[in-house]
């Protein structure tokens, strides 16, 4: 599939039309998606928008919005007015969004065409897309493996070549980890850079929406369109909130060696080390750093996130929208609706969240987790005084086999390098750093570049040099 930039050039020159690209994408879904199952819904009726875009290019050429006629796949926890947004949960199976999320409104204004809603772990809880209530998604690069998650459907849609880019959400790695498993670019913005209005909330202090693309330049383009202050999300930030984070010719990279010492696949570590060497060869400075509190990040995350989950998902009560089970009393309706509507992982996290927030445990768990979070931020501030970018692999392993991770704790450990980024709110970019071979198949593995708060532009500038130019 062409990149967004390539599509745009071909649309303007007339070599390709949005209608042709739309038709090709719909045909590709019919041909390939029965096996992969990236999509929960396909919006074939959006063809009229492609036709209108085709006409507009004929009339105005380059004088058109930047994403005009570009088909995008959208994770099904992002509201598109008039479309079902199920978040891959039975409780929202028939829920039709009554308004556009801010990111959708901005992409729409830029001319993008939404071609379908993608599969995901239910309510974005998981790292493999096996937790969908509507069946799992397979990795297009090796269908016996998972595409990652929770934005696994979005990643698979791009990796299959159906769309040039897709939208995901990232609460603990849900954009970056599937990007790593599927050989794509994934970006988690600085917390507050992108409005959360119209995202089905998971962990409100952690959630951000971002793109999965083939190039860093495309990720930058989408981010530039969706980001910015929004009156409907009071946590959105202005470009000067964190001051100037300059872009440079060469950078100082910090490698948290201690953090990488444990539980990481040897081939992934070798690929990572080769990547670090290539940066040194390109004239960048490499230093070892210590992030002792970061290593407690995963434990803190599995307190903070479930706490927010249990609060956010309290709204699904069978009253105003979504599934409603019949029962004798109001309490009965609540309990049966939530029993039937939520899957295992969602129930597990709601129970965990209820526990850590309950009287007597709040200080020991939630209070301590927030303290860890504050100490992680302080630790980062110190480290970013001397380094410009922190480098880790995106995930400790390549894409794993479907059904391989049955123990919830083992699954949670896949997030070890990504969750500290959400807990502290800094931006991070993942792109392919190489491949490892499993059963004769080359599987991509991603590297994660972490910048200080507000350093989104630094990541794009660097990513374009390190990845796009050598792609």
């Amino acid at each position, binding site marked *: 599939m062409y990149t967004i930039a390539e599509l745009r050039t071909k649309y303007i020159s007339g070599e390709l039309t949005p209608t042709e690209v739309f038709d090709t994408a719909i045909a590709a879904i019919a041909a390939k998606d029965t096996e992969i199952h990236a999509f929960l819904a396909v919006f074939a009726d959006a063809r009229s928008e492609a036709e209108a875009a085709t006409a507009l290019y004929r009339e105005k050429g380059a004088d058109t919005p930047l994403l005009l006629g570009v088909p995008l796949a959208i994770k099904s926890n992002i509201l598109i007015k008039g479309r079902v947004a199920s978040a891959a949960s039975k409780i929202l199976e028939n829920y039709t969004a009554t308004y556009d999320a801010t990111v959708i409104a901005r992409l729409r204004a830029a001319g993008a065409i939404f071609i379908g809603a993608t599969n995901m772990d239910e309510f974005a809880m998981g790292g493999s897309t096996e937790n969908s209530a509507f069946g799992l998604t397979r990795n297009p690069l090796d269908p016996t493996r998972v595409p990652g998650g929770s934005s696994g459907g979005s990643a698979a849609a791009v990796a299959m070549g159906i769309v040039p880019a897709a939208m995901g959400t990232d609460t603990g790695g849900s954009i970056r980890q599937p990007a790593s498993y599927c050989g794509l670019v994934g970006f988690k913005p600085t917390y507050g850079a992108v409005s959360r209005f119209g995202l089905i909330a998971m962990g409100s202090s952690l959630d951000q929406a971002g793109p999965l693309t083939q190039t860093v330049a495309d990720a930058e383009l989408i981010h530039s369109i969706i980001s910015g202050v929004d009156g409907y999300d009071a946590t959105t930030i202005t470009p000067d909130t964190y001051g100037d984070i300059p872009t440079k010719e060469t950078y100082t990279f910090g490698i948290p060696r201690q953090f990488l010492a444990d539980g990481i696949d040897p081939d992934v570590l070798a690929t990572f080390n080769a990547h670090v060497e290539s940066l040194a060869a390109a004239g960048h400075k490499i230093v070892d750093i210590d992030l002792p509190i970061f290593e407690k990040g995963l434990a803190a995350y599995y307190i903070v996130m479930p706490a927010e989950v249990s609060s956010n998902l309290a709204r699904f009560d069978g009253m105003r929208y979504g599934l409603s089970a019949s029962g004798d009393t109001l309490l009965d309706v609540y309990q049966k609706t939530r029993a039937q509507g939520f899957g295992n992982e969602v129930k597990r996290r709601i129970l965990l969240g209820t526990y850590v927030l309950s009287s007597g445990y709040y200080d020991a768990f939630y209070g301590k987790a927030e303290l*860890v979070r504050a100490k992680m931020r302080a630790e980062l501030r110190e480290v970013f005084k001397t380094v410009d970018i922190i480098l880790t692999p995106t995930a400790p392993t390549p894409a794993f086999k479907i059904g391989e991770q049955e123990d919830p704790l083992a699954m949670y450990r896949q997030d070890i390098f990504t969750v500290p980024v959400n807990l502290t709110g800094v931006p991070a970019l993942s792109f392919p750093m190489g491949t490892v071979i499993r059963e004769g198949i080359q599987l991509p593995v991603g590297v994660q570049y972490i910048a200080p708060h*507000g350093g989104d532009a630094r990541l794009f500038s660097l990513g374009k040099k390190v990845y796009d130019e050598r792609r």
Partner: protein
Amino acid sequence: MTKEEIQHLATLARIELSDTEIEKFTTEMSAILEYVGAVTDIVGDDALLAPQVGAKHNVFRKDEVTNQTDEYTAALLAEMPQTQGRFMVVKKILNPDA
């Protein structure tokens, strides 16, 4: 973590659990709590929890009507499991005989 504790949490969370689920969650939750317990030995100054740069407080916008009357009413009613006219039907919560 005991089965009774899981049942209590489920009641608080308004989720009916089967016996099999209670069994499974009892085992899993104990393991998860042991893991996340890594945070409980953290010590630090509570001053760290004070707002940092970038944290925002009291972000208000004007309390003004931004939509037309009935602009969303039909769409919202259509999402409701049970309606009567322009009303949502819910279970009675006050019982005069109780």
